[in-house]
């Protein structure tokens, strides 16, 4: 057993780093995510043919297999696929950020309210959540895209409309456990306001669970976004989207395999990165009830 002084000598940051660096899953996931984000941000500066993002046509170079000039080959109108994949990462990441940026605050706040207040507040919020959970996101997105016009904004809207429910569920269950903890009761007896208790006492204790969930979610959102685009209900050409590229390339299989396979691999790697990172963070923070 260590004395407290010794314990203190090992600072927080060091302990976290120590555990993180010895967790290969987390490290690989983090590397993938960081590299993808950097590529996406720097896309205009590092891609060989930045103008190929738009409706460029270069028939002399169409259907070129992967080579030194075109790492991922070219598509049916002669555009560099590597360039378009990198720009495609951008769209996928923006989709994830916007969807989660809308869904998480809503989900977290509703979860906190339902978990802390209980009673009819809980009943109303959690029943709505249950109903929303019963609808598969892809079906919802298809419906929204069918009613409105298929576009990036609409597909994000559709996904965000359902995604908050998972966070509500998660935060609700954590809050219910925390509500009876002594430190929450202590804050109540000290006269702290409800807002203080919800956002200063309980929320900080949810952060690690939210981080894990967010990372895992990002992978799923990206997959669903790609699936929508693949079905023609998401991003519309010529904007380079990974799902759309897979769909277009699919008509040239198996001869020009690179046109769908390589963008497909990019989706896979990106989603995998987020999932590995999420799993790694879960081990690191030791949170259990997050799926």
């Amino acid at each position: 057993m260590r004395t407290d002084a010794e314990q203190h000598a090992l600072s927080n940051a060091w302990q976290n780093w120590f555990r993180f660096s010895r967790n290969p899953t987390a490290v690989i996931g983090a590397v993938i995510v960081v590299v993808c984000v950097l590529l996406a941000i720097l896309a205009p500066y590092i891609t060989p043919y930045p103008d190929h993002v738009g409706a460029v046509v270069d028939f002399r170079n169409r259907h070129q297999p992967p080579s030194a000039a075109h790492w991922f080959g070219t598509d049916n109108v002669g555009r560099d696929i590597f360039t378009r994949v990198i720009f495609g990462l951008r769209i996928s990441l923006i989709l994830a950020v916007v969807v989660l940026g809308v869904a998480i605050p809503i989900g977290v706040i509703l979860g906190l309210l339902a978990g802390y207040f209980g009673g009819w507040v809980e009943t109303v919020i959690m029943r709505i959540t249950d109903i929303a959970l019963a609808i598969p996101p892809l079906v919802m997105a298809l419906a929204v895209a069918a009613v409105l016009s298929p576009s990036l904004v609409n597909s994000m809207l559709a996904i965000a409309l359902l995604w908050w429910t998972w966070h509500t569920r998660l935060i609700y269950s954590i809050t219910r456990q925390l509500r009876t903890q002594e430190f929450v009761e202590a804050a109540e007896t000290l006269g702290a306001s409800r807002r203080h208790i919800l956002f200063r006492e309980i929320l900080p204790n949810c952060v690690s669970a939210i981080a894990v969930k967010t990372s895992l979610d990002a992978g799923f959102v990206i997959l669903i976004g790609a699936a929508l685009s693949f079905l023609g209900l998401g991003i519309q050409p010529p904007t380079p989207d990974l799902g759309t590229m897979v769909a277009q390339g699919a008509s040239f299989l198996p001869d020009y395999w690179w046109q769908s396979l390589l963008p497909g691999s990019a989706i896979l790697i990106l989603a995998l990165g987020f999932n590995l990172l999420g799993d790694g963070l879960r081990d690191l923070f030791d949170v259990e009830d997050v799926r």
Partner: protein
Amino acid sequence: MTASPVLELRDLHKVFPLRGTFGRVRGEVRAVDGVSLSIPKGQVYGLAGESGSGKSTIARMIMGLTRPTGGDILLDGVSILGRQASLAHRRKVQMVFQNPGASLNPRRTVGQSIRVPLDAHGFPGNRQRRVAALLEMVQLPRHFAERYPHELSGGQKQRVAIARALAVEPRLLVLDEPTSALDVSVQARIIELLEDLGGELGLTYLFISHDLSLMRNFAQTVGVLYRGRIVETGAVAQVFGAPQHDYTRLLLASVPVISAEEEAMRPAIPLINGEIPTAEDLLALRQQARSKERQA
């Protein structure tokens, strides 16, 4: 004119309904069953009881964490149960919890935790300086304000909890087993600190514990709680020296003591089939004896 007691409980009741399937009420548990007591200023009142005696429920009711189903709680002669009971009035009573590890938010620094009551009650003046002064009061260095609870030992955490409770200058502290999670040597220092602070600040304590040896040394008046009722009360030396109620006797006889003098003062409890009886056995036995007497 005598000053009104700092805390007065008048015939306090708390009944929990027992619910079966579909929320139907099947019965009730009388957790607190008519408890009355009053504590004059500057006194330490020890409430002794085991699990299920209702001692924690009493603390929770005083702190406003649960509402009594009957009776009244008065602070400085004014009820804290009415709708008009203000935050300012509530401020006068604060609590130190049993487990210092659980009563401090693990994600907030010591300084942030101590600031909670200052912010909640709109403390006038420099709050940061007040936090430093409070840490000093509980004999912790002021740079502890930057630390997180897990960087502190159990005793240090409990000091922080005491500092937090003292932040808004309460008149009464409810101490719910404040040292039962600590080592004896640490416990001795925390009790010493509480005694010093009590003298300096004119505090009144309601000390809830199952540790009778500790109570003997810290409290002046004691109430023995059994199944929601105070079965015996009086000056601590008197109650412990000449216990009248069977349950008090059993409690005292059960204390693991460390000297022959203490052993000599523990009441003898008759063994039943070679075993120490439970409180229920003992009281049932007494009941039988009484009904026999009546018949004779």
